[in-house]
């Protein structure tokens, strides 16, 4: 589920980051209002998710093993706002130390794995199923349904973000079906695992879970978060579409798929200028591509393309050699420095010796 930076475009990544930050801002305000006592608990619980992820369990009958995701568990233990913030920290550390999810994709990951678990799955499904009090069955059903639905939202969001970014060419329906299918299975496992832990804690230390429930019931303010999120998405969606129309990249492909056209037809002067610029700068300009199976045969464009490609390869080789050369020089400098340092040390030692004698 973690999206890397290579598959996301700056516009999509930036948009999701703004949305994620807005939700985090609301959550921080709520947590600050509630009680600061929770902050060490939040930090340690986020660390707990890491430790729990290290304990793999065997999935019966398959021989494979899986681990916990954590979004739903954090919101059950801490409430949605604190849960979302803890998830934000978990994802930031995963991105920085494990490259599990990129930095540009951080906002997207936080929305996909934090927002849907904490503000959709937890309040509307888990809380709804367990509204008449906790029992083992309700806990299991609630966790499984909530994590399945949360992950389905998240997986669909990944599909949409990937397609809008246009960094890879995957047909929408196949990609979506695969993602939803895989995450249905993951959701069921995640739900069972979450319920297993929560039901154990509920049996042994009911106060931990009860505490949070009573805290939650005092303040049911999800509405503001959800409305804020929707407004932010719509607003930013508008900005994205403006960007996307001047930079036809992912959308171009998506529209092409839908309408069956090779490229969306733009007839503004901006389009012409951009097209010209693109053709001038691209190594393999757009006109050398023809749809499905038609090899470019026109001599003039063909030789032109080959010319560009050859110069591209030559230029690339030179660039790489220059970079390697720079590396070589840095190495040389470092070696020299080391040698001079060693010499100094040796000189120092000898001078000491002469002094002593």
């Amino acid at each position, binding site marked *: 589920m973690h999206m890397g930076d290579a598959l996301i475009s700056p516009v999509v990544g930036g948009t999701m980051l703004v949305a994620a930050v807005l939700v985090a801002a609301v959550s921080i305000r709520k947590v600050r209002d509630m009680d600061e006592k929770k902050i060490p608990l939040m930090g340690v619980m986020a660390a707990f998710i890491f*430790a729990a992820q290290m304990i793999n369990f065997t999935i019966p009958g398959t021989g494979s093993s899986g681990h916990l995701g954590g979004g739903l568990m954090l919101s059950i233990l801490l409430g949605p706002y604190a849960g979302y913030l803890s998830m934000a920290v978990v994802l930031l550390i995963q991105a920085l130390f494990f490259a599990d999810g990129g930095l540009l994709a951080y906002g997207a990951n936080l929305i996909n794995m934090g927002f849907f678990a904490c503000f959709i799955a937890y309040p509307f499904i888990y809380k709804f199923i367990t509204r008449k009090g906790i029992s083992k069955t309700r806990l299991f059903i609630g966790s499984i349904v909530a994590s399945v639905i949360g992950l389905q939202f998240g997986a669909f969001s990944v599909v949409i973000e990937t397609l809008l970014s246009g960094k890879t060419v995957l047909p929408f329906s196949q990609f979506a079906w695969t993602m939803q299918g895989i995450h249905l299975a993951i959701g069921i496992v995640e739900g069972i695992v979450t319920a297993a832990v929560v039901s154990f804690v509920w049996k*042994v230390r009911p106060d931990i879970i009860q505490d949070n429930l009573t805290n939650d019931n005092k303040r049911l303010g999800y509405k503001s978060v959800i409305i804020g999120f929707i407004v932010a998405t719509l607003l930013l969606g508008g900005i994205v579409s403006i960007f996307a129309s001047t930079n036809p990249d992912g959308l171009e492909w998506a529209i092409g798929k839908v309408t069956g056209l090779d490229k969306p037809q733009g007839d503004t002067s901006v389009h012409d200028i951009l097209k010209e610029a693109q053709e001038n700068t691209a190594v393999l300009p757009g006109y050398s*591509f023809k749809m499905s199976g038609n090899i470019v045969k026109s001599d003039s464009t063909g030789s032109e393309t080959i010319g*560009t490609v050859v110069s591209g390869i030559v230029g*690339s080789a030179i660039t790489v050699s220059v970079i390697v050369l720079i590396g070589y020089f840095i190495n040389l400098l470092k070696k020299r420095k080391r040698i001079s340092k060693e010499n100094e040390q040796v000189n120092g030692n000898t001078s000491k010796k002469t002094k002593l004698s």
Partner: protein
Amino acid sequence: MSDIMRSMFNVKHLDELSRQKNLINDMHPLAKLIITLVYICTLASFDRYEISGLLPFVLYPMIVIMVCDIPFGNLIKRVLIVEPFIIVAGILNPIFDKNIIEIGGFAFSSGWLTFVSLILKSTLMVTAGFLLIATTGIDDIARALSLMRIPSIFVLLFLLTYRYIFVLMDEAGRLLKAYALRAPDQKGVKIKVWGSMVGQLLIRTYNRAQTIYQSMILKGYNGKYSITIGRGFKLLDAAYFVAWVSFIVVARAINIPLLIAALI
């Protein structure tokens, strides 16, 4: 079990690299953070067929690795661990991208260009992310975050989580060792036992959090966390920052390999 120890070691190792004394490690953390973000965003802004334009970007990680003495093999191993998903997402491109291009008599799917471009981009981006931690360290990143006006609650949470990851992993490691001694030759923990095992860990964690909170109160915690801002932004930091950002902007605006070829 050994997995836990290994990942703990790996995380610590990256952070510890930042304590070495060298030119880049001594730069202001804010400069390094923003350079990394600009670098990643710029790479992400390239078209999916771009290859030659990406090559000049190798310069940044290479210089940082060389100047900071980052163990190259270790870094590559970490980058490779992340790569499989990108390979899966990329390898489908030659299949689905039905455009055919012809270069010097060879005809192939343009999806291969996308594939190579994706792998190149992802490798550079992931490396840049690791290099940020390896040259800056967690405390300085927290400092940079608070300089960027990220609320102190979040920064505190970030630092607390990082600190307790090791404590709890250690605890999880002991639990697993006890389990492994009684149930040898198992791949993971049986799902029946898993719930109560992790639940135990959770309860211990909860108790620990209470203790931590009490000791924080005793030391005068009042809901706020003040981070020492450290040294100011010097001229050298500004020069470092401007140099890299202008390099990135130029490399994005001009396809340097093509320019070189044109000059020849």
